[in-house]
């Protein structure tokens, strides 16, 4: 439909008006429009925090999974539910200011399929409930227990998947106990993950149904100001290494110069070490032409403190999410000081 209409909505979500000054009122806990602001020292409480936080402007439930077919063929899947509030709070029916959108994708070395859905809160078309946990938009679902067993499903015009996720480890909190700083000016979000899912299920692709097994990673994040005004996009890595350790790292690119990086080293038992700006170094090694633009699809990622120096390469360089707001997201293969696999998300790469 009208791409402009929807992209306005998403631009609203991505840019949030660049109100960096609002951070100055952080002590009051709200910004100029009445949205709640992330607070350091927030004490998470579950299951409530698995659910929606309608007083914050944006929020997501973000699942990526690295899978293998019966013959070892690598696959990846993505399931994301975004919430974006036009104003704080929730209301019944069409009055609800909450807008939801879902993104789903399946990727192999040669195929990449993506779909999106839109919906309004308040009517039951889309939403998240904490207990019992259910996140849905239309017929796309994530439901069950995030520390036990949950089901994940989505369909597009030419693909579908239906998998079961089994938690094999604890929840993990990024930054300072889940308060994750996003820029030198102090923009931040509440951010935790469940990176220890074991997955089993079925992918449906045009060539038929494929039974798959693998691992999945859930990210939960909410905020009211994700980016500073000059930040043009991000490169986000979630890597799982053969020895059971994991790394979450991101690089926020700044048009004014100087990138902002952040990372969390997750040991196999869930013990975390947070790293602030500068510890993680991510350097593009090779770019691919994707959807008429150059996107880095091979990276060198270094975290000196943990002796990490790896090359991260896209399984499929053409994993372009050609949706209303386009971005790159796909499975990656890790080699070098550590072997493994993971997911890479890159936003803000504009076509010339």
């Amino acid at each position, binding site marked *: 439909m009208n791409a402009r209409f929807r992209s306005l909505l998403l631009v*609203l979500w991505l840019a949030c008006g660049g109100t960096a000054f609002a951070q100055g009122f952080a002590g009051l806990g709200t910004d100029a429009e009445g949205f709640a602001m992330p607070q350091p020292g927030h004490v998470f409480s579950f299951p409530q925090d698995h659910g929606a936080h309608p007083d914050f402007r944006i929020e997501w439930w973000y699942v990526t999974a690295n899978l293998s077919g019966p013959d070892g063929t690598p696959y990846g899947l993505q399931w994301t539910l975004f919430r974006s509030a*036009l104003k704080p709070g929730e209301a019944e029916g069409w009055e609800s200011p909450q807008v939801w959108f879902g993104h789903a994708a399946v990727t192999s070395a040669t195929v990449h399929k993506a779909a999106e859905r839109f919906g309004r809160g308040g009517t039951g*078309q889309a939403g998240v409930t904490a207990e019992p946990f259910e996140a849905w938009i239309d017929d796309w679902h994530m439901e069950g227990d995030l520390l036990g067993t949950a089901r994940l499903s989505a*369909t597009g015009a030419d693909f579908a998947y239906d998998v079961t996720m089994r938690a094999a480890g604890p929840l993990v909190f990024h930054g300072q106990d889940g308060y994750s700083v996003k820029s030198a000016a102090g923009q931040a979000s509440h951010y935790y993950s469940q990176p220890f899912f074991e997955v089993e299920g079925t992918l449906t692709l045009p060539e038929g149904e494929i039974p798959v097994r693998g691992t999945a990673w859930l990210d939960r994040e909410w905020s009211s100001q994700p980016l500073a005004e000059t930040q043009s996009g991000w490169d986000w890595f979630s890597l799982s290494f053969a020895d059971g350790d994991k790394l979450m790292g991101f690089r926020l690119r700044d048009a004014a110069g100087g990138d902002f990086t952040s990372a969390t080293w997750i040991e196999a038992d869930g013990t975390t070490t947070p790293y602030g700006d500068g510890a993680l170094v991510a350097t593009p090694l090779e770019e691919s032409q994707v959807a008429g633009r150059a996107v880095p699809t091979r990276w060198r990622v270094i975290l000196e403190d943990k002796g990490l120096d790896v090359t991260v390469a896209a399984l499929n360089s053409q994993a372009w999410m050609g949706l209303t707001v386009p971005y790159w997201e796909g499975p990656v293969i890790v080699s070098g000081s550590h072997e493994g696999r993971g997911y890479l998300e890159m936003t803000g790469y504009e076509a010339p």
Partner: protein
Amino acid sequence: MTAATLGALASHWMRNRVQFLTLVVGLALATALWSGVQAINAEARASYDAAAAALGEGRLDQLVPANGETMPQERFIALRRAGWLVSPVVEGRLRAGTSTLRLVGIEPLTVPVGAAASAALANTDLAGFLEADTLMAGPEAADVLRGALPNPVIVDASIASGTVIADIGVAQELLDRGGRISRLVVSPVQPLRQRPLAEVAPDVVLQRADGASDVGRLTDSFHLNLTAFGFLSFAVGIFIVHGAIGLAFEQRRGMVRTLRALGIPLDRLIVLMILELVVLALLAGGIGILLGYLVAAVLLPDVAATIRGLYGADVAGTLQIRPVWWLSGLAMAVGGALVAAASALWRLSRMPILASAGGRAWAVASGRGRSIQAAAALFLLAAAGGLAVMGAGLVAGFAILACLFLGGALALPLCLAVILKTGQDRSSGVLPQWFWADSRQQLPGLSLALMALLLAMAANVGVSTMVSSFRLTFTGFLDQRLSAELYVDAAGVDDRAALERFLDTRADEIQPILSVETELAGLPAELYGARIGRTYRENWRFLAAEADVWDRVADGEAVIVNEQLSRRAGLGLGDRLAAAPGLALPIAGIVGDYGNPIGQAIVSETLFRQAYPAVSAARFGLRTDNPEALRRALVDEFGLPSSSIIDQAAIKRFSLSVFERTFSVTEALNVLTLAVAAFSILMSLLTLAAMRLPQLAPVWAMGVTQRRLAGLEVLRTVLLALLTAVLAIPLGLLLAWVLLAVVNVEAFGWRLPMFLFPLEYGRLILLTLAAALLAASWPAWRLSRMAPASLLKVFAHER
């Protein structure tokens, strides 16, 4: 020096005001024709888009309540959660002050592409639309709303007038229909998996969007007609501008010679002349655009009425100034003028500095180009032939048109030269011999104007033939296919026998429409079972049929097939077709079936029910004298939703009126094109008049009176116009053939029979002759009244 040169150039116009006038008026008229057609075209397109957007759901499948006017909103949620990509719509009449508007409530996040309001939504932002209970409407409805409701109103001209668009929540509140929706629009792209409709929402019915396709095809043809006319008028315009500029330059040859002899460098002279030309072209183009606006304003109410009739939706009948046709008009004037000047300037620059600037030298110079022109004409005509045989696609169709058009125009002077030479060879006597020879001598000077006339005539013949052929074919087709007054969609009716019993007493004739999709002669096709009554017998026209076709079909002894099936399977009358397993019947009739992509066969209802006992009629055609009463009875007494009843008679009336109005617009444009062509003849004659004095003066000196000479001048122009008109008819018919058999096939996928309209062509020839007569009479009148001294001067002056 520059100023002096400019002064000299300008002084030419001061001394030849008539010529200046003809140049400016010629350019202005050509621009007017072009921009007028463009304006009508642009306006029509914009109006289509608005109307199509307002009624866009007609082109998408819909889920409607099986009973009643609305369904609970929960159906929307249930269907979405079962994988159905649907979007809710609530619709109703909204009272605002003293008027009633149509309020359409939509859900902006799920509304599919091409649905109502998607064009308008593209121009607005979500937060404003959702949060402030905003209404969107066209300018007129917006004024009404502002006075009557507190809601903010966004004006959007793309919304059909009388329609208001709002968020579904706002609309439900304004219509007092909280939690209810009127229908669900089904997105054309659906996910891989979804639960069956009957399981999720058993009380809704899927309504396929096929009902709108007939109207869609009709509008497409109207559109094509306008596009073709815009294309043809552009070509005519180019020729006219070319003629006007070319002649103006030729006429100033003497002055150029003098200026160059005085020492003005050639390149500076050419730059200054180009500059002068651009200024003139902009002036004339500006006037032309204003004229075009007037033309469009006069013709546009017809176009607006056409669209209103077609969609049953209000379309603003006022013209909006669109930059597209402003710019294209000016570009046409300047571009055409420069293209025309290029050849004239090139020839000027190649002319020896002291060459005679007389008309004869010009004719000789043109004569040299004749072989090149002949080669170009032959090449273009051959290319047209080659493309017709080998080309494919709409582009090839239009390329054939272009080749024919240009090739025909270039071939005209050659054809005329041959005819005039023949005339000269066969004539005896001094004066007739001189008449023919002088006509030949004049041909180069008039050829551009005559080419314009040829193209105008050919375009008229071509477009009239196409439109009339369309009209005849479709009238017949609509009469036979939309013969019933009402159609009832019974897909949502459980007890169809009860519906039939209900209808039995109320309708004059019931035609259950029984059909299955099947394979006939190895091709995908539809088999229809028809209850043969007076409707079929009276209305259906066959491309080929046996005498007692309906009796034989009614008795179950024969079958009728459509043209597509007959052609593809190579079946003719009398051949046997296996209509169903164990049922092979001879073909007794073949019908035209315009727009249907697949084959079709029709057997009697009895045979159909025997072959497919499980199939029951999903639609009924109803004959009645009072469709409104029957419709009301169906809704009020039988409880059928009104959206299931289609007033087919109204659709037919609209469809037919489209052609009447298209025709009147085409006719008006025809007259205008001819008028412009006539003006270009007048212009050429006026320009030639002065040059021709040296040729006329000796004839006059030998005793032919000025009156007689003037008479001969008129006769010659009329003769040339007649020859051109006669040559234009085959060219026009070729154009029509390309439009009907190539462009139409590519654009719509079926070929229309071509009908000939000799009377119409005769009328056009008379009109052309009248135009030529009118164009020739003023120069002739001036010649007859010329002071003899002017003629005498020819012998006194060295020219």
